[in-house]
Every structure is written in structure tokens, then in C-alpha cells.
């Protein structure tokens, strides 16, 4: 178990810089999720932490050691890959024990360690099979077995669930969380799936274009996204972005959007500096509720999508589509006018120029 800190790490391929000055800290026993769309550099960063790729600058520190020039095998890390990367020619037993075998651990302690890991992951009955004979979920377990058997300082996961079907993915997500709670080893976990990030991470780093957009705990990321990219990337359906002008009306801040006016209360302090200027209001779909109020939007119902527990409504507000998550009882009909009030305490304002949160 160890802390991880990344200081000013850069990476470029030729003239293309794919990671710009990355700084990260992970506490001992923490679970850091690197989240972002494909091509954002998250996997490259993971490879650099693992030592599979050299960085172009900066330091990677695991525990007390700066590991920049240390071979992956000597970093005392373990990794689970997207394709699992099980050795197809070896039995499950040998796959799990291969790392110990390479470290010249004697056979009996190796067998003990394999047995314990297999018990923990409930794959003891599969030990003599070849990876080709296993299902996707079983392979995933073997890959995790291979990682935990060595008792590493740090686990690295590279999109480990993306090759599984939806049901199994949820199951294995719970399993990973359980393992982390039990073993207490620090984890760095790469994914493009925001649900995985929110459920697993103690800390989430949202990345885009080789830059960390925001590094915070999942709740903060969700409620106070640092910028419009983070706000739009997290949450499903995505956050509504409403363009408008901020004005001071009778001592209250209001947002004008077309003919609509939203009264803002409980909005960030910095907002007053933007009075008279254009801003973007970010409104999460679930902060709408049916009915009028001081902050409300009226539009024509465009699409209604019942999902079971909720009903999603797309509302046409003066040409801009707004999606709202309402209770399952609500069944408006397309074409009807509808008024939704907004919980403005959960509303975020963004600077339209920079995209940053105000």
C-alpha cells in the first residue's frame, strides 16, 4: 500500500503533446479514477504510471520512491487490462502465479497465494482450465486474481469492464468495490464510463486533451463541475446549458433567456461580477419539477420517454431543447405546453468565453 504522486508529467509523441503537465496526488488506500473521452490521454498516463511507457518529463512517485527509471516489474504494481491479457497458452493457475514465478517465489508459497486469491474471487474450480475455456466474467476474475496475488502497492485498472455486457459490468463493478474495501490497496482506474467513476472513485480526475479538467471527489465533480466540459461529460441525460444574460432586478439576480426569466437564489458569489453580461446556466435534468415558481421555464413538450422509475421530458423552450427528469407519474403529451420550475440552488453558471464555472 502506498501513496501515489505525479508531478508535472508530460508526454509527447513526436511533436504532438498528449499529456500537458499533469499533477496528481492519491492518498494511501484511495481510489483514483481517470475519466475522460477516448484520446484524452488517460490510458497514456496509466502506462506512464506502470512504467510501460517513458514520460517526456516530470516525476512519478509511488510511496517514497521516485520510479521514473524503474522497470515495471520493480515498481511493485499490478495491472488489469481491458482485454484481460491472460496468457492463452497457460492454465489459469499459472496465469495467476506467473508474477510470483518470475519473482522466484518457491512453489509452496506460490500455491498458497494462488489458492487464497482464487478463493477470494471464487474461481478455485477454474484453476486448471485455459483462458480460452472461460466466459468473459470469469476471465475478468482471473485477471484480477493475477493482480491481487502479488500484494502490490498499487493496482492499475485499464478500462477493465468495457468488454463485458451490461449486467455483468454492474456485477463486476460491485466486486471491484468490495475488493478495494477489503484489501485497502490504492487504485488508479481508467474509464470512460461516468457511472463507474462516480460509484468507485474516492477521487475522480476528469481529463480532456491531455489536461486534467478537474480533480475532486465524485460529489463535488457532479455538483460543482469546474467547467462546461466536466459539467456536460458527467450526468445522464446531460446537463442543460441555457444561454442568457445576467441582470440585477430589484436586488435579485435574474437570468433572461428569451422571454423567460429565472430568478437566481443561492448562486455562487462571483456571479455578481457578471451582471449585464452573457452567461451559460447549467441545469441538471433532475432539478426540474412540474409547476410554476419564481424560477420557471415554459415550453412545448416535444418528446416523452418513460424509463420506469422516471419520465424524461424534452421541452422546447423558445427553440432550445431542455431535458428534464420527472417522476414516473408525470405523463405529459407531446405538443402540450408545460411549465417546469428550477431548483436554482443546484444551478451552475459558466462563463461562455472560457467555459469555466463562475
Amino acid at each position, binding site marked *: 500500500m502506498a501513496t501515489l504522486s505525479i508531478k508535472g508529467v508530460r508526454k509527447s509523441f513526436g511533436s504532438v503533446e498528449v499529456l500537458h503537465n499533469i499533477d496528481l496526488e492519491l492518498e494511501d488506500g484511495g481510489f483514483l479514477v481517470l475519466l475522460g473521452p477516448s484520446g484524452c490521454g488517460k490510458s497514456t498516463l496509466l502506462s506512464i504510471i506502470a512504467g510501460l511507457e517513458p514520460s517526456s518529463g516530470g516525476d512519478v512517485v509511488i510511496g517514497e520512491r521516485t520510479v521514473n527509471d524503474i522497470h515495471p516489474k520493480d515498481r511493485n504494481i499490478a495491472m488489469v487490462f481491458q482485454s484481460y491479457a491472460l496468457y492463452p497458452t497457460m492454465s489459469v493457475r499459472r496465469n495467476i502465479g506467473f508474477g510470483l514465478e518470475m519473482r*522466484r517465489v518457491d512453489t509452496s508459497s506460490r500455491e498458497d497465494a494462488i489458492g487464497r486469491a482464487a478463493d477470494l474471487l471464487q474461481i478455485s474450480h477454474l484453476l486448471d482450465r485455459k483462458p480460452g475455456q472461460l466466459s468473459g466474467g470469469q476471465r475478468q476474475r482471473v485477471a484480477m486474481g493475477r493482480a*491481487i496475488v502479488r500484494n502490490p502497492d498499487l493496482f492499475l485498472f485499464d478500462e477493465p469492464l468495457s468488454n463485458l455486457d451490461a449486467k455483468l459490468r454492474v456485477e463486476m463493478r460491485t466486486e471491484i468495490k468490495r475488493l478495494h474495501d477489503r484489501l485497502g490497496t490504492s487504485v488508479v482506474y481508467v474509464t470512460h464510463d461516468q457511472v463507474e467513476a462516480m460509484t468507485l472513485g474516492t477521487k475522480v480526475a476528469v481529463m480532456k486533451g491531455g489536461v486534467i479538467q478537474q480533480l475532486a471527489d465524485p460529489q463535488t465533480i457532479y455538483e460543482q463541475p469546474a467547467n462546461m466540459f466536466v459539467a456536460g461529460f458527467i450526468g445522464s441525460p446531460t446537463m442543460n446549458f441555457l444561454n442568457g444574460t445576467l441582470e440585477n432586478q430589484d436586488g435579485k439576480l435574474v437570468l433572461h433567456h428569451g422571454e423567460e426569466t429565472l430568478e437566481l437564489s443561492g448562486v455562487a458569489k462571483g456571479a455578481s461580477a457578471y451582471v449585464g453580461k452573457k452567461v451559460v446556466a447549467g441545469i441538471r435534468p433532475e432539478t426540474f419539477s412540474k409547476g410554476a415558481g419564481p424560477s420557471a421555464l415554459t415550453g412545448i413538450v416535444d418528446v416523452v420517454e418513460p424509463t420506469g422509475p422516471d419520465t424524461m421530458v424534452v421541452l422546447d423552450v423558445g427553440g432550445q431543447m431542455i431535458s428534464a427528469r420527472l417522476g414516473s407519474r408525470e405523463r405529459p403529451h407531446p405538443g402540450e405546453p408545460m411549465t417546469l420550475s428550477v431548483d436554482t440552488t443546484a444551478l451552475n453558471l459558466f462563463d461562455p468565453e472560457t467555459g469555466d464555472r463562475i
Partner: protein
Amino acid sequence: MTSNPQSIMASSRPLSTWDRINPARYIGELSETRFWMYLLLLPSALLIMGVVIYPTLYGFQLSFREMRLNRPDLGTDWVLLKHYQRMLSDQIFWISLRNTAVWVTAAVTIEFSVGLIAALALNRNLPGTKVLAVFILLPFFLPNVVAGHMWALMLDPRLGVINDLLVKVGLLGGYKAWFADPSTAMAAAIIVEAWHSFPFFTLLLLAGLKGIPTDLYKAADIDGAGSISQLRLITLPMLKTVIAAAVILRVIGLVNSPDLLLILTSGGPGRSTQVLSLYAFQTAYKDFNFGYAGALSVIMFILLMMFAWVYVRLSKVNQD
């Protein structure tokens, strides 16, 4: 986990003496350096330099020199463009050039057509056709020498089974000496070559066909396109790169290797089956005139390069 890292590390064995002197360990350490990928390439690159690049360059400079193994009195002086000038007035060179064009064009056309038909039929994955595929691909793996002899036997003017069959069905009045008649020798040789190498096209085109998503055909079915339009509008355009690669590789093979003609006809009768590669080889092998043989090969190589360049250009233009 109940055990801690120390317990596992404690049970690791220390390095033995053998481990210290084990050469694999040093190569292993070498494999972690930045030069590893180049080191892996080094042996093969050196070998190719030695047996391909050096001889080819040597061959180029030979084409500007006098070198006759059976006439050491002539020396090995530089003769500049003498060989190339000689070529201009060399009747056999021009005949060979024309024959090469006929040989390559006819063979590639037949091989491609038959290869495509076989590939299309095999791609239907009908039951039992897997075995037929093995038979159909087999000729490509047979040696030129044996392929040549098999057909020479079947086309023999006295005991050839093909003559016998053709006479029996009435297509031929009497046995014919196919390879001894200047008007049929080239055609007969092309048939043998086509038999030997059409499976190459089948092989590549079949792989290309497997890469075409079946959804395209389903969509075309629904749109009402018939088999012919599907072939013209989906199959052939999707196969374009494979076809280009296959044609280039086969043309290279046909231009460069004189083997089959050497075995079947040695260029005869007369000069009716003399092609460039064969002429160059015989100039070297029979006349030991290495300088002139080199010049002929250089011209052949340049023509081939020009063909490849134009062909790639044209197929790219078509794609746009």
C-alpha cells in the same frame, strides 16, 4: 489478503552463480534499452544488405562494365552505356519485350478471371466446398519443374493425353506438337502458367471477400439489386485494394521469374516464347555475358517500377 508483501519477498530465492553468468540475463537487460527494436532487426537487415542490396547494386554497376566469364581477355573495364546502346539494335531484346507484354497481360488476365470466379464460388461457403478449396489452391504450391513436366507430358506430341482427348471429341484432326509450333507455344505456356498461379488470386480475393460485411449484401437485396449489380457495385469496389496488391505482386512474379518458360520451351521455338527475364538469364547462364545480362535486368527492373508506379496511381485515381 492475509499475507503481507514481506513474507512473499522473503521466500524469493537469491541469485545463484549461474544466474550471474547466464547470457540470457544480459540479453534480457539489453532488451530493456531503447535500441532493442533495432537490435532485433539487425541480423535480418544485415543479411538482406548482403544478399539483396549489395548484389543488386553490384548488378547495376556490372551493367556499365565489360564482364564475360568465358572471355577473360576482354577484361572488366567500364564501358559506360555500351550495353544499353547494344540493346537498342538488338532484335531479340525487342522481341523479348513484346513477348513479355503478351505473356504478362494474358497470364494475369486469365489468372485474375479464373481466380475471381473460384473465390466468388468458394465464398458462398456451400457444404463440401472446403475440400474442393484445398484442391483448387494446391497447384500454387507445386514446383515449377513438376508443373512444367506434368503439362509437357499431357501435351506431348506422341503420347499426350490432351491430344488424345481432343482428337476423340473431334476438335483436333491429329496429335499436335503444341510447344514446337511457334503459333501455339506461347498460348500453351500461358495455359500452364495460369493453371499454376491462378490459385494465388483465389487466395487473396477470398480473403478480401471475407472482409466485406454481409450487411451490405443484405441491404442490396432489400434494395432489389441483382447478383450482377451486387458484384459490380459492391464486391469489386470493395476488393479494389486487394485486387491492386494481387495484380502488382503477380506481375512482379511473372516479369521476374523465367523458370516456367525455361523448363517448357527455353524461349523457343525460334524466339516465339523468349521473354526478357529468360533472355537475361540465358545471357548470363549460357553466354556468361554478365555485363549485358545486368543491363537487361536493369531495364526490366525499371520497367517494372514504372508499371507499379503507374498502376498504383491509376487505382488511387479510380478510388477518388
